[in-house]
C-alpha cells in the first residue's frame, strides 16, 4: 500500500469518530439546542460498546447498545433543556462531567483490554478498484459507509428537500413562527436532540469497536469537543460535517505517519495537532471571509429556550 492510500485509509477510519458525532450535533443545533455533552455521551458510548462486546462478541450489538444508552442520556438532557428549559450550557457541561465520570467508573474493569470483537473491513467489489480512493474508502468497515455516505446524504435530503426538514429548520430559526404555523416545536426539539445524542454515543462505540479498538481511561480525549467545534466549521450541514470529520482524520493520520517514520517531533506535540487545528479552523475562516459568516451562520434561535407564553 503506498503512502497516500495508507494515509487516506487511516483518515477515513479516524475521521469517522468526529464525523458521526458532528452529524449528531448538527441535528441538535439545527433545531436550536446546543448540546455540549457530546464528550460525555461519547465516553458512555465507548464504554457501553466495549462492555457489550465483552458479554456477546458481536460488534454491531455494541454499537446498537451505545445508540440506546446515548438516546436515554439524550432524552434526560432534552427533558432538562427542552421541556424544563434549563440553561443549555450548564446542562451540557453537566452531561459531559457525568458521562466522563460514569464511563471511567464503569470502564475500570475493561481498562487496557482490547475489544473482544471489532468491526472488520468489508470490501465492495469494483468500487475498491478505483485508484487511491477506492482502496481507502471501499474496503473499510460497514460503519464507515454509514458515516460518510448514508447518513450525510440521507440527512441532507431530509433537511433541505422535504417538508419535515423545512419544519425542523424553522424550529431552529424562529420557534415562535414555527409554533404559530402549527409545527410542534417541543416534540421536534426533543426528538432531534435525543437522536443527536444517540449518534454521539454511537461515535464513542465506533471509537472503541472500530478505530482503537480497546478501552482505556480518557480514550475520548476531547474528540467530543472537537466535534462540537466542527459543527460551526461545517456551517451546520451534515455533508460538510462528515467532510470536516474526514479532514481531521487526515490530521490525525499525519500524526501517526510522523510517529511511524520517526519525525524528530515528540508524540505529545503531534497529539496537539487536532486541537490546534480545530482552533485554527473556527477562527481563521471568520477572519478571512467576512461574507461566509452569513452563509454559514448558526440557526437564529440556537441556545435560546422557547416559551410559548412569552412571545
Amino acid at each position, binding site marked *: 500500500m503506498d503512502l497516500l492510500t495508507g494515509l487516506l485509509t487511516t483518515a477515513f477510519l479516524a475521521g469517522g469518530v468526529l464525523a458521526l458525532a458532528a452529524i449528531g450535533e448538527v441535528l441538535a443545533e439545527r433545531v436550536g439546542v446546543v448540546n455540549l455533552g457530546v464528550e460525555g455521551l461519547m465516553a458512555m458510548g465507548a464504554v457501553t460498546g466495549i462492555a457489550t462486546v465483552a458479554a456477546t462478541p458481536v460488534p454491531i450489538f455494541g454499537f446498537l447498545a451505545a445508540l440506546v444508552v446515548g438516546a436515554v442520556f439524550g432524552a434526560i438532557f432534552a427533558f432538562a433543556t427542552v421541556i*424544563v428549559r434549563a440553561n443549555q450550557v450548564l446542562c451540557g457541561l453537566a452531561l459531559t462531567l457525568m458521562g466522563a465520570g460514569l464511563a471511567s467508573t464503569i470502564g475500570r474493569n475493561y481498562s487496557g483490554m482490547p475489544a473482544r470483537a471489532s468491526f472488520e473491513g468489508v470490501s465492495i467489489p469494483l468500487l475498491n478498484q478505483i485508484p487511491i480512493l477506492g482502496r481507502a474508502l471501499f474496503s473499510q468497515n460497514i460503519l464507515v459507509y454509514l458515516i460518510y455516505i448514508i447518513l450525510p446524504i440521507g440527512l441532507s435530503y431530509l433537511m433541505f428537500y422535504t417538508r419535515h426538514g423545512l419544519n425542523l429548520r424553522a424550529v431552529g430559526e424562529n420557534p415562535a413562527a414555527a409554533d404559530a404555523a402549527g409545527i410542534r416545536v417541543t416534540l421536534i426539539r426533543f426528538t432531534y436532540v435525543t437522536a443527536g445524542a444517540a449518534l454521539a454515543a454511537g461515535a464513542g462505540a465506533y471509537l472503541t469497536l472500530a478505530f482503537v479498538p480497546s478501552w482505556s481511561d480518557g480514550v475520548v480525549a476531547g474528540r467530543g469537543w472537537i466535534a462540537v467545534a466542527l459543527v460551526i466549521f461545517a456551517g451546520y450541514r451534515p455533508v460538510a460535517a462528515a467532510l470536516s470529520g474526514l479532514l481531521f482524520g487526515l490530521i490525525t493520520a499525519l500524526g501517526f505517519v510522523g510517529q511511524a517514520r520517526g519525525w524528530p517531533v515528540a508524540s505529545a506535540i503531534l497529539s496537539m495537532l487536532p486541537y490546534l487545528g*480545530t*482552533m485554527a479552523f473556527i477562527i481563521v475562516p471568520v477572519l478571512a471571509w467576512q461574507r461566509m459568516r452569513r452563509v454559514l451562520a448558526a440557526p437564529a434561535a440556537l441556545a435560546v429556550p422557547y416559551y410559548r407564553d412569552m412571545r
Partner: protein
Amino acid sequence: MFGNWRFQRLPSAHPGVAFAARAAAVIAALVFTGIILAIAGANPIELAAEVIDSSFGSSFGLEDLALLFIPLILTGLAVTVAQQIGTWNIGAEGQFYLGAFSATAVGLFVPGPPALILVLMFFAGIVGGMLWILIPTLARAYANVNELITTLLLNFVAALLVYYVSTGPWRDRVGLANSATPRLSAEVPEFWGIVHWGLPVAVLVVIATAAVFTFSRWGYEVRLSGSNPSAAKYAGIPVRRHLITVMLLSGGVAGLAGMLEIAGTVHRLQGGISNNFGYLGIMVAVLARGSSIGVIFSAALMAFILNSGIILQTQGLTTSAVLAMTGLILFLTAIGDELSHYRITREKT
C-alpha cells in the same frame, strides 16, 4: 380544582429561592449517590460517618481539606470573573496548567535568592494563565468566535505540553521519579501544618476582586456590559476593551492557582497536576451564582466533596465517581435554577 393553579415565570429568580434550589440540588445529588452506593453493597451511613470523621475529626483532615480549598477558590473565581462580562471561561484547567508550567520554568532555570524567585514565580504564573487565554480572548473580541470552545480546546494542548516537558526535557534525571521535574527550591512557606500562605492570598484575591466589581466604576461598566452589551455600547462604554481585560484577568487568576499548587503544595511539575481543578472551578462558580464572595463558600463545599472522594478511594470509590456526582449536582442545579424562576399562584374564582 386543579385548573386555577397557575405557573408564572418571573424575569429573575428570587435569591432566596435560587439558594434553596441549589441546596436542594446538592442534597438530592448526595442522596442519589448514597442510594447508588447502597445498591452497590456499601453502607452509605457508615461511609458518610467515615468521611466526616476523616475530614473534620483531626487537624490533618482539615489541612488536607484546606489544600484542596486553595486552588478551587481561585479556579472558581476565574470562571466567576469571566461571567461578570457574560463569557464562559471553560479553560481554567488549561490556564492552571500554564500557570504551573511558567512558575516551574522560573523555579528551575532562574538563579537567585528563593524569596525573589518566589515573587518572580508568582508573576510568571499569572502571565502564563493570561497568555493561555489570549487567543480565545482576541478571537472573541474581534471575530466573535465562541470562547467556550476555544478555551476548552486549549485545555488539552496545555495538558499535553505539561506532560511533555515533565516526562521529557525537564524531567528529574537524578531522582527516581521519572515523570516529574526536580523538586523546586523556592516554596511558599507554611503557616499551619502543611497549609501554606496561598490560602490567605487566595482569600485576599477574592475580596479584592469582589470590591473592584462591586464598588469601582470599572466594575460597574463591566457588569453592565455583561448584562446588556448593546445598551452598554450605546452608553459609550468600551465593551470590547473591558471584555479583553476581564478575560485576561480571569486567565491570570487561574494561572495563579496553578502557580500556588506548584510552589505551595506539589513542588514539582507533573502530568495531571491540575487534578480537574479547572473543571471543578466551573462548578464552584455556578454554585456561587456570579458572586465573588460566594466563591469562598462554594469552593469550601466542592473541596469537601472532592476530599470525600479521595477518602473513599480506600472503599473502592474513584475520583471519576466524584466527577460524575459533580456533574449530577450541576445538572440538578441548572434545572433548579430554571424552576426557581416560577411562581405558583392561585387564581380566585
